[in-house]
């Protein structure tokens, strides 16, 4: 039997801008990438969900604050509570924090400048559905592009929830934290953009390690359900 192609939903909010790149990258990694509109209240029939980057609702009030109450986000909340895999990239990370699905908050960069460049990251967990193709201590290169990426953890954050750290902190994040997961390990948020780094032609294909791990895990869920 041919290995099944997992369905991965990518949510588009008003102001999302990396949704198309995420759809393209997932399709390139052999997933069936499915666009999901933000008004969709019912959980879409998918095996995993990506909340992409951009400026949902114009970043009004705080980045991610309004999208945290969107119908599609409510569906994601239920999906995640059932153990569904959710990956939030950049604005998606901000949305997941605002929605309370991930701990912490993302504030204005310490420099007050928008930062847009490749960064080096260190992987600190290789046992998550998002990092199985990586090794602990491995360095990954992928771009960041954000004005509000300074991660502030809650005082009681379990260090085991830190998944990625910056080698050279570009935004003043506490302890150089670039990505965190929830306690159960099925929701990950990160500021760098793996979907912009899936082809050497784009400067790096390290992002494919994270996204392909994620697609593998989604495929395992399909197989487990058969």
């Amino acid at each position, binding site marked *: 039997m041919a290995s099944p192609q997992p369905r991965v939903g990518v949510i588009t909010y008003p102001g999302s801008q990396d949704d198309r790149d995420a759809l393209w990258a997932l399709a390139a990694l052999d997933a069936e990438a499915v666009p999901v509109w933000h008004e969709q209240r019912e959980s879409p029939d998918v095996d995993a969900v990506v909340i992409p980057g951009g400026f949902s609702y114009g970043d009004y*009030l*705080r980045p991610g*604050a309004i999208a945290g*109450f969107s119908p599609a986000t409510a569906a994601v909340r239920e999906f995640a509570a059932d153990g569904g895999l959710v990956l939030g990239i950049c604005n998606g990370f901000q949305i997941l924090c*605002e929605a309370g699905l991930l701990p*912490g*908050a993302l*504030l*204005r*960069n*310490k*420099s*007050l400048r928008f930062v847009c460049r490749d960064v080096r990251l260190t992987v600190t967990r290789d046992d998550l559905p998002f990092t199985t193709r990586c090794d602990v201590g491995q360095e990954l290169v992928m771009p960041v592009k954000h004005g509000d990426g*300074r991660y*502030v953890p*809650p005082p009681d954050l379990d260090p085991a929830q830190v998944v990625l750290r910056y080698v050279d902190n570009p935004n*003043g994040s506490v302890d150089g934290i670039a990505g965190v997961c929830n306690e159960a390990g099925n929701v990950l948020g990160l500021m760098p953009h793996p979907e912009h780094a899936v082809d050497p032609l784009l400067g790096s294909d390290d992002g494919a390690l994270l996204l392909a791990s994620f697609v593998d895990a989604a495929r395992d869920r399909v197989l487990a359900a058969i």
Partner: protein
Amino acid sequence: MRATVLVRPKTGILDPQGEAVGSALGHLGFQVRDARVGKVIDLELEAEDEAEAKAEVAQMCERLLANPLIESFEIEVTA
């Protein structure tokens, strides 16, 4: 009733915007020890009772207007 919500970065949370404002005021010759930048949200409410209005706005702050991890809020209600 009208309500004004003041949202401030919590004590201990780095506020680079406040630092930039403080430093710019210094360049203008003002003696400023510290500056913090927050935001003001003005609301017009259906509620007619002050206590009721205040309780409702407190809920708004907790659910949307402020992020309790990084921001504190203060509510003023006027007729």
